């Protein structure tokens, strides 16, 4: 509001300037015959009052008169290209707080709830089913896309994708915010995320599992685009894990070597460290100090072995994923298990030699 007033003030000033300027060539120009001397004062006053009163109260979209819930619900499905059963999708937007509020309202009016048929049902059941499907499908998809990535990493990406903040972000941007029926306003992230799960549950109920999985693939998984998946999983000791993995695939232990350095005595010192195994370069990385460069090179080597390098091919999404054959029973290797096996074997060897 205040911004628009400022803008109109500027506009008024511009108009005055325009009238002062001679404009002989323009045929359609109509000169102004007044200087509008009270307009500025009026706008100033309005601006002052707005500052005193404060900003406009935030209201639900449904509080305005041109709101048709049924047509909005219909448009929601059409926008996403999904055919919903109207009762199912309506149920997906009903939060439990809204049901309780309705119940309380009726009790206040003195109605006996036992006598009346109270057919409002909240979305918790749909959300539960939807959450299961999202969680399952995201894991299956990621395991098939990154078959050499460790299970811990897959879980880390999964947790990032199904987190409350991520799901609420998606729900907000596909337009669930205005449609949700709940007590809290502005709508809480938890409510938004539950609604998104319920919408997936609704797709599952109305259109079947395949369509629901496509829905998840179209709206949840693209959030990984331009995200570095290796950063989602924090490896505490990359060199230790690298040693274990190299031993597992029958290669020699990793050997870090300094490849190049520059400006060693300056604050902008740079070191390149390469990691060799069996005299073959596995990976190299720069760093501000030798220790950092070595650690980063170990991470790079792990990325190479897990086939999640920066140069990896993009995720198969959209129409290209229509004919995707996913192995639902696939389970990736666990880093913890690899480490456990390696160190127990090492212990055995040590005791045997001693």
């Amino acid at each position, binding site marked *: 509001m205040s911004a628009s007033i400022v803008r109109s003030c500027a506009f008024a000033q511009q108009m005055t300037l325009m009238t002062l300027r001679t404009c002989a060539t323009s045929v359609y120009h109509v000169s102004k015959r007044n200087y509008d001397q009270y307009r500025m004062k009026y706008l100033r006053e309005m601006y002052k009052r707005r500052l005193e009163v404060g900003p406009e109260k935030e209201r639900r979209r449904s509080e305005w008169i041109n709101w048709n819930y049924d047509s909005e619900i219909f448009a929601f499905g059409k926008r996403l290209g999904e055919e919903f059963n109207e009762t199912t999708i309506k149920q997906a937007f009903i939060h439990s707080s809204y049901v309780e509020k309705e119940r309380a309202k009726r009790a206040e009016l003195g109605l006996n709830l036992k006598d009346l048929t109270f057919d409002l049902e909240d979305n918790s059941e749909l959300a539960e089913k939807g959450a299961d499907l999202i969680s399952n499908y995201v894991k299956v998809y990621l395991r098939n896309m990154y078959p050499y990535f460790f299970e811990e990493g897959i879980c880390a990406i999964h947790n990032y994708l199904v987190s409350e903040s991520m799901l609420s972000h998606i729900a907000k941007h596909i337009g669930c915010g205005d449609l949700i029926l709940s007590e809290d306003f502005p709508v809480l992230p938890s409510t938004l995320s539950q609604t998104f799960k319920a919408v997936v549950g609704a797709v599952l109920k109305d259109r079947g599992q395949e369509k629901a999985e496509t829905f998840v693939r179209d709206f949840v998984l693209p959030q990984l685009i331009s995200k*570095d998946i290796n950063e989602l999983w924090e490896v505490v000791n990359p060199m230790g894990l690298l040693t274990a993995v190299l031993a597992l695939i029958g290669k020699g232990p990793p050997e870090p070597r300094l490849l190049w350095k520059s*400006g060693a005595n*300056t604050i902008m010192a740079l070191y390149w460290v390469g990691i060799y195994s069996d005299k073959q370069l596995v990976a190299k990385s*720069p760093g*501000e100090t030798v220790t950092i460069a070595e650690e980063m090179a170990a*991470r790079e080597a792990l990325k190479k072995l897990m086939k999640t390098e920066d140069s990896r091919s993009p995720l198969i999404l959209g129409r290209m994923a229509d004919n995707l054959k996913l192995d639902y029973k696939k389970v990736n290797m666990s880093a913890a298990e690899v480490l456990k096996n390696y160190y127990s074997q090492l212990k055995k060897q040590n005791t045997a030699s001693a």
Partner: protein
Amino acid sequence: MAHSRVTQWATMTRTWWIYDANYQCPFKTAYRLLPYLQGLNKPVYHSDSDVGDHVVVFNTKHIAMRGDFWRTFKHFHHTKFAGGFSRASAWRVHEMDPTRILERAVYSCLAGVETRKMMMKRLHLYPEEDVPEKILENVTGQIRQVQIVPKKLTDYSQEEIDKFPKLFEYPEDYDVEGYKRENRQEPDQHTSMKWRLK
């Protein structure tokens, strides 16, 4: 720790180069050093951004000028006071400061470049070979010289000199040892009176 952070660090790093100015033309050398100082060899180069490398130049006392340039090439200066103009020929300037000729050559090459003063700070000039150890530790690359270092008469052994076919005899009054003496006879019309040798 993000890998993108260290790759960024590697992109923005400044490499240290070394250049031997022994028997090198200062003007050709200046053009050779420019791309390194400006960072023209980097994919992130932009004329407004300061992404150049460091260049360490040693043996600037032993640069070589072609033709009669030591005598005729002049450096000018004006103090902005009346009668403040002065000029000095290259050999006189070189005598006063053995890094000055190369420094001015590079500086004038960078005319019109906004970041010229920043680049000049990254040019480290040393008259002799005794570059400090701390500076040498930073260096990782070498810049190719602009011309081949000639072999001097003193570099040949007496045996080789004697073996060389002698085509004629010097006249008896010819000053054979002249090149060994310091030249104090030079009238040096190119230098202001103030800077001339007394």
